[in-house]
């Protein structure tokens, strides 16, 4: 019977599998012989960058991952934190960059599907989806098509499974012209004592396959995600998987129903490298062997070879180890949900992954060598040279500069995007997209989770260490600004080719900064994903370590939003504005330059100012709060005025030029608005605590004015520009 192993292994074939000579020699020595075709395929995906983290592992080990509230850190399907009352939040973010560029709808859709499975595999009901999207410059001929496809794909999947997509971020930059970033995050809830893990146990126990049937889609997806793009990358379309959110919805319900019993010993979703990585992972974590009979794998296509079955990335599939004797009960649940259920093998004590097909052994590999022997590279790197702090000139026309920025591609409203996502299903979304952080109630309690995804790639490029700090600090600040206590993060580290010293230097620098910020803010990393080789024709993306933060609010009735609460509120700035226009959005968009050091992140001030602001919200002194980030003070004032439907009149000091006050992106700053008496209280409290505080002015009218007309914008015109940019752009057929 033809099983694929008659194909001869040649140096060309090895190379096509993304393995270099040294790596192939390692495989031969680990196996004590030449691998056959099936085995070569399995080694190639297990040792791919995507699955083995061979370039990043050495540095990832240095990140802080522990805190008293961390139940599970990196290494499982997702991270788990204790949120009190016996409940846990489970979350992770993952990239689906390469497939989304080639086929935006399915690439983005299956990105959502994959991250949902990582979370419900652990026993959680997914309660919120988030995303972080980066596209090329708006004028690039592909950008519009990619935005439309990705948004449609995220909505098409998330809306159907019935998990609200509650927020995210979207940016445009030429560095993503040939390599967009689609990072999806899911947050789920479970009982803290009912978390499911992937370590297999019990020799002889059945290995069970559930979900969709296996087809030929997505073969070598993991290998594709581990190489640079070239002009002919679109020929790789067949490696993009196709998602079926309806099946995913059934799979969620069936798995959660089975998880309510005690039948499951271990469970793992079939993500990148499908059946291969799931079985290897489960066996490796449990220190056991797996024997799989591939003839029993549910198949969608005929004449599939072992190689194809093992490497397929068909979606909506899971692998489980059940307690013996529970197969019939489990099968009944999956049949109720009209899903495939098949016992495809059992646990052995050989420590090998043994594959049978047509009665023959077609593959037999030591699990240890697939995981432990994977190469680990300490790639050479060069730190990004430090930039000097600089001042940036005033614009020719302050009003126009503000208007162009707030009504431009990077600060305009993302309503066109999030209105295509069901952000309210499940009935617990109490802060919708458009604010600092999304807030969803913990169903049936007073508590809520606050979630934010952030990174400023401009800063990471200018100074990776500072940029790494800032990405972590910004999620922390956004979660704080709604009144929640930030607890932990997940990350999605998107970089270029790690074989280049400067790119590796960006990676190392960003990780250093992230680690520092996590330590200073007691905000550990509990899960994550690395996506390297985000390059096309040798040109890398801006370093983009996207951070997804999760926090908890004890009393969701005390939640702040960015909207001014009507006329007559006093507006107070917490934190200090400095001359920090280097690498700012103003500098790039208005002055057309990218130079100078980015704003400095002082983590002590960050924590002090943030803790102060959170207390104001928790005490009920403040219900309007916004952090300052891209676009600085004027962008924040505009957001608050537009959301509240009321103007504001402020005065800034003469210590800095007006444009510096308005556009500086100094960190650790928040705007709050409240009644005059409370504002005075806050001013005193801040002063006593040694926190810089400035009463800026008052809300009212229908204009935003600064220093008696130095800047003067009509709120309605501003809102029209802010709301109008994206729909107008998307409506213009290219």
């Amino acid at each position, binding site marked *: 019977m033809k099983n694929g192993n008659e194909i001869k292994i040649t140096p060309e074939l090895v190379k096509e599998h993304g393995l270099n000579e040294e790596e192939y020699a390692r495989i031969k020595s680990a196996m004590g012989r030449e691998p056959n075709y099936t085995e070569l395929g399995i080694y190639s995906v297990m040792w791919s960058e995507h699955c083995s983290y061979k370039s990043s592992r050495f540095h990832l080990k240095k990140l802080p991952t522990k805190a008293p509230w961390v139940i599970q850190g990196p290494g499982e399907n997702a991270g788990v934190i204790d949120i009190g009352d016996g409940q846990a939040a489970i979350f992770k973010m993952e990239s689906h960059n390469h497939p989304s560029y080639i086929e935006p709808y399915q690439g983005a859709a299956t990105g959502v599907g994959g991250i949902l499975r990582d979370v419900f595999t652990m026993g959680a009901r997914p309660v919120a989806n988030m995303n972080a999207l980066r596209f090329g410059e708006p004028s690039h001929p592909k950008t519009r098509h990619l935005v439309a496809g990705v948004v449609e794909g995220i909505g098409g999947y998330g809306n159907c499974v019935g998990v609200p997509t509650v927020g995210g971020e979207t940016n445009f930059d030429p560095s993503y012209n040939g390599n967009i970033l689609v990072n999806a995050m899911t947050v789920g809830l479970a009982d803290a004592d009912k978390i499911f893990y992937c370590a297999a146990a019990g020799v002889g126990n059945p290995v069970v396959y559930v979900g969709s049937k296996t087809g030929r889609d997505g073969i070598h997806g993991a290998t594709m995600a581990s190489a640079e793009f070239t002009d002919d990358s679109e020929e790789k379309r067949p490696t993009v998987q196709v998602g079926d959110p*309806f099946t995913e919805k059934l799979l969620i319900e069936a798995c959660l129903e089975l998880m309510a019993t005690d039948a499951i010993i271990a469970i793992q979703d079939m993500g990148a490298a499908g059946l291969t990585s799931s079985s290897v992972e489960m066996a490796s974590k449990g220190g056991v062997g797996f024997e799989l009979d591939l003839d029993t794998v549910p198949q969608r296509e005929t004449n599939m070879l072992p190689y194809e079955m093992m490497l397929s990335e068909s979606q909506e599939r899971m692998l489980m180890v059940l307690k013996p004797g529970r197969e019939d009960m489990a099968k009944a649940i999956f049949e109720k949900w009209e899903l495939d259920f098949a016992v495809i093998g059992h646990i052995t004590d050989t420590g090998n992954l043994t594959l049978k097909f047509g009665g023959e052994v077609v593959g037999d590999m030591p699990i240890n060598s697939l995981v432990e022997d994977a190469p680990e590279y300490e790639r050479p790197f060069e730190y990004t040279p430090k930039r000097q702090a600089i001042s940036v000139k005033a614009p020719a026309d302050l009003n126009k500069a503000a208007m162009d920025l707030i009504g431009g591609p990077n600060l305009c409203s993302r309503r066109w995007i999030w*209105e*295509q*996502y*069901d952000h309210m*299903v499940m009935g617990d979304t*109490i802060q919708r997209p458009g604010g600092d952080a999304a807030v969803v109630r913990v169903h049936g309690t007073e508590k809520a989770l606050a979630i934010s995804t952030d990174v400023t790639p401009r800063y990471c490029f200018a100074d990776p260490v500072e940029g790494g700090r800032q990405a972590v600090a910004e999620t922390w600040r956004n979660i704080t600004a709604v009144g929640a206590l930030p607890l932990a993060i997940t990350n999605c580290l998107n970089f270029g080719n790690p074989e280049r010293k400067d790119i590796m230097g960006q990676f190392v620098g960003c990780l250093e900064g992230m680690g520092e910020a996590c330590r200073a803010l007691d905000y550990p990393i509990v899960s994550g994903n690395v996506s390297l080789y985000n390059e096309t024709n040798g040109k890398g993306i801006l370093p983009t370590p996207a951070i997804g933060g999760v926090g908890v609010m004890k009393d969701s009735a005390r939640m702040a939003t960015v909207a001014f609460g009507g006329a007559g509120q006093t507006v107070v700035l917490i934190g200090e504005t400095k001359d920090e226009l280097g690498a700012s959005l103003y500098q790039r968009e208005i002055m057309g330059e990218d130079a100078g050091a980015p704003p400095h992140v002082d983590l002590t001030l960050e924590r002090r100012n943030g803790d102060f602001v959170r207390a104001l919200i928790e005490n009920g002194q403040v219900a309007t709060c916004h952090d300052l980030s891209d676009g600085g003070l004027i962008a924040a004032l505009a957001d608050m005025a537009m959301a509240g439907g009321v103007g504001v009149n402020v005065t800034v000091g003469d210590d800095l030029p007006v444009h510096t006050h308005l556009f500086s992106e100094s960190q650790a700053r928040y705007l709050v608005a409240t009644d005059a008496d409370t504002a005075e209280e806050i001013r005193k409290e801040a002063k006593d605590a040694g926190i810089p505080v400035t009463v800026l002015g008052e809300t009212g009218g229908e204009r935003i004015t600064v220093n008696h007309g130095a800047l003067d914008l009509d709120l309605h015109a501003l809102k029209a520009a802010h709301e109008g940019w994206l729909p107008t752009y998307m409506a213009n057929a290219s």
Partner: protein
Amino acid sequence: MKSAVIVFPGSNCDRDMAVALEKITGQKPLMVWHQDYDFDKVDFIALPGGFSYGDYLRCGAMSARSHVMKEVVKRAEDGVPTFGVCNGFQILTETGLLPGALMRNANLHFVCKDVKMTVENADSMFTNAYKAGEEITIPVAHHDGNYFADDETLDRLEGEGQVAFKYAQDINGAQRRIAGVMNARGNVLGMMPHPERMIESPLGGSDGRKMFESVMNTLG
């Protein structure tokens, strides 16, 4: 008021509907899995939103042909108040309990947002707690909410007071901005907006409550 929520594979607003019914009526509804079609007698049947059968073939088409819907149709014809939201509305039109059809939104995009709509008939068992002409805000979340029927049918629906709600602005291309319609007898209502998502201020408002309260008023 004892209610039932019918659950199909792919329903995803079933829990939201159950939460709203329990909060407002004080009684937990019966959750009816589509295969358990021989369910207890209830005062009110709700068909929730979602993507039953993945919207394959046509939204609501597969569910409309299920055993449980045969039972629902029978009970609706016997006069049991029957209410479909979003996918539930699509199922009701597919069964023929309600006239017309729901086509893809005119701009071809899924739309999720709060919309203003007016109460066109405040005398029905589903709307008597509202005032006639009252403007209310309820969210929509759909890809196929573009209501279509021929002019003759539309004239009849409007003439007979079978149009329960209209959008204040066009949001999906629906004929005459129709958001919700009733059958001739007035005991079946289908609507695209989700009243169960607007039942308390943390969710953005409570304009949806009166829909449920109207039924409670009627049933006493």
